[in-house]
C-alpha cells in the first residue's frame, strides 16, 4: 500500500541527502517526494510517498525520526487528508485537434498554459486517479513530455502537523 508521510525537517544543508540516503541504504522505495517551506522560518516540509507493508512503513517512520534534523513525521494516509499533485503535459495539438483537447482539459478543470503551432502545454492538479485519467485521454493525441511535482498533502479540518 502507498503511504503519504509529512516530514518536518530543519532547513539545514544536506537534509535532503540524509533523507534520500536513508531510504536507499535501508532498501525503502520513494515513490515521489516534494519539498518546500512551511509557516515556521527554518523549517521545511517534505511530503514523501512510499510503498510498503505496515511493518516497513513503521520502520521508515522510526528511522526518519532518528535523523537529527527531522522534527516530526506523520503518516497522512492514516487520517482524512487532502492530497494534490500538479502536472504539466505537453501534447501534440495541430489546429484540427485543439478544440477536442480543450474539451478534455475543461472536463478535468485543467488549464491550457501555452500554445504553439503544433503543441499545447496543459496544467492539471488533482489526485493520482485524475492524473492517470487525463493522461489516458490525451495519449490519443500524442504526449510529448510530462512533468509532475509529486504529491503534497494536508490533514482535513483544523488539525495541523505541528513542528514542535
Amino acid at each position: 500500500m502507498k503511504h503519504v508521510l509529512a516530514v518536518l525537517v530543519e532547513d539545514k544543508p544536506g537534509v535532503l541527502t540524509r533523507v534520500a540516503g536513508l531510504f536507499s541504504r535501508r532498501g525503502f522505495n520513494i515513490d515521489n517526494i516534494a519539498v518546500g517551506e512551511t509557516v515556521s522560518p527554518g523549517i521545511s516540509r517534505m511530503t514523501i510517498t512510499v510503498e510498503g507493508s505496515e511493518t516497513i512503513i513503521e520502520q521508515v517512520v522510526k528511522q526518519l525520526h532518528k535523523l537529527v534534523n527531522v522534527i516530526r513525521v506523520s503518516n497522512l494516509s492514516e487520517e482524512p487528508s487532502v492530497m494534490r499533485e500538479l502536472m504539466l503535459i505537453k501534447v501534440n495539438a495541430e489546429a484540427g485537434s485543439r478544440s477536442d483537447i480543450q474539451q478534455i482539459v475543461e472536463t478535468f478543470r485543467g488549464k491550457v498554459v501555452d500554445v504553439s503551432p503544433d503543441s499545447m502545454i496543459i496544467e492539471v492538479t488533482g489526485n493520482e486517479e485524475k492524473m492517470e485519467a487525463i493522461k489516458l485521454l490525451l495519449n490519443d493525441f500524442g504526449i510529448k513530455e510530462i512533468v509532475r511535482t509529486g504529491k503534497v498533502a494536508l490533514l482535513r479540518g483544523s488539525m495541523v502537523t505541528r513542528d514542535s
Partner: protein
Amino acid sequence: MKKKMTKGAAMITSALQKEGVEIIFGYPGGAVLPLYDQLYDTPLRHLLVRHEQAAVHAADGYARVTGRPGVVFATSGPGATNLVTGIATAYMDSVPLVLITGQVPGAFIGTDAFQEADITGITLPVTKHNYLVKSAEQLPGILSEAFYLASTGRRGPVLIDVPKDVFDQEALFDYKIECEIPGYKPTYSGHAGQISRAVKAIRAAKKPVIFGGGGLIRSEASAALEKLVERAQIPVILTLMGLGAYPGDSALFLGMPGMHGSITANYALSEADLIIATGVRFDDRVTGKLDSFANHAKIIHIDIDPAEIGKNVQIDVPIVGDVKIVLEAILNKLQPGETSAWLKQIENWQKQHPMPGGLKSSGGALKPQQVIREISRLCGDNAIVATDVGQHQMWTAQHFIIREPRTFLSSGGLGTMGYGFPASIGAKLAAPDKKVICITGDGSFQMNIQELATAVNNRLDITIAIINNGYLGMVRQWQDIFYDRRYAYTRLEGNPDFIKVAEAYGATGMRACDEQEAAAAIELAMREKGPVVLDFVVEPEENVYPMVAPNRPINDIIIGGERS
C-alpha cells in the same frame, strides 16, 4: 565594551577542555595544521598513532572503557577517509566518539582540491550525525551539539568537518554544555503501562530468561540487572556486546547465544516462555533463522532506540527507554514468579553440554582455547581484554571469564579485523591501573601491527597474545564446513616472525609452541613492562564449536562436526 573574539581552533580546544576531554587520538596533516598548532599550547594530551584508522579504534576503546566520548583529530582527504572503518565500527556498536577533521579551505570546497574528500557525504550512513562547518560563528553550537549527541540517547560517532580557514577565523565564543535540538529528544523513562505489563509477564513466567546486550553496558545497568536476577531467579544470556554486564562466573550466567554461543543459552532461548530482551538488537548472528527464533516465548524488549523494537522480531511488550531506568522501574514493582523447575532444567543442560574445546590434543600442539583459559586464569579480576575478529574472538568470548562491565572490547556489529590492538591502546590510557590484554589472530594483528610504534613510544604495558594458526581461521573454518575444504587464499603464507617484528619496534616478544612455553610466556607478560607480543603457535585447523550454521534455528547445533 568590545567583546573578546576567539579563533576557531581555540574554540575547539577550549570546548574539549570544557567537555572534560583528557586525551585526543590523532594524526596531523596539512588541512588540520592550525588546530594542531593551537593544541600545542594546551594541557590536552595527544596520542600520535601510525594510521588514522588506529586513532578511531583507540578512541573507541577509550570510550568503551570510560563511557565518555573518545576524541579524534585527522586531516582532510586520505586522513579523513582512513577514519571510515573505525567510524563504522563505532556506529554499529553504539560507541560515543567526536571526530574532528580538517577540510580544504571553504573557497576550494567542491573543486577537487589537493587532499579534498567529501567526508560528511562519505560518513553520512555511519555517523549518528555530522557537520560541515561554514564559519567560526557556528563552531560553539556545533561542538556542543556533537558532544551531546555522541553521549546521550543511543550513543554513536559524530563527525565535524572544519575547513582550514575556519580554524583561523575569529568569532564570539560562548560555550554552553547543554543544548536544545528540536529533532532530538531521547526517551529515558519507560511507559508506565508497558512496565506494568512486563511485571505481570515476569510474575506469570515459568521459563524466563534475560537476554542482554551492549545497551546494559552503555547505560550502566549492571547493578539493576544483578538485583533483578537475584530477586526473580531468572538466568542471564549475554550477547558478545553484553559480555561483562553480568559476572561471567555466576551460576545463573548461561553464556553467549547464537552462532558460537553456548548450547545451554541457545536451548534456553528456544524453550523459554518469556524473554526479557534488554539493550539488544536481535542481530542475525544471535537469532539464527528468524521464523524459528524463540517460538514459545513472549518477548519484552527494552531499548533506548525505538527503531530497534520490532525491527527483526515481533515484540509483545515494547518498552522504549534507558535500560537501567526501566530495569529499576521494573524492580520497584517486581513480583517474582516460580522458576525453580526451569533452573533445574538449565542446570542439567549445563552439566550435559559444557563448553567444548581446549582439551589436550594428541600431537601435543597448543590448543587455542586452552591458551585463552590460561590467560584468563592468570589475569584474575583486574583485566581488560580486547579482541580482534575471527576464531580467537569467539574463543575469547567462550573461555575468557569476563566479570565486570567495560572490561571486554570487541567489534561486534561490523566485525572489524584490526580493531583489537589499537582498542587496547585506548583502554590502557583510559585505565592505566588495569592489566590490558589484546587477544588477536595472526591475520587481524597484521591489519594494525604498525601501532607497536605507538605502544612502545608511550611505554604502554599491553600484552598482545597472537593466536597464530597460520590461517584466516574463521574463513578457513567456513571453507572446511561449507566449501568442501577448498582453502581458497586463507593460508597466510609469508607471515613475518612476530618476535623479530616486536623486537624491531622495541617491544618484547616470546613464542610458545607447547603448554610449558605458553605458561612461561604468559607469566613473563604479567611481569614485563611495555608492550609484550606473545606468539602462540596453535593447532592450525582447530574449529570453533558449538556452531549454528547461518540461517538455521539456534537449537540446531553442530558440536565438533556433529549436529546435536
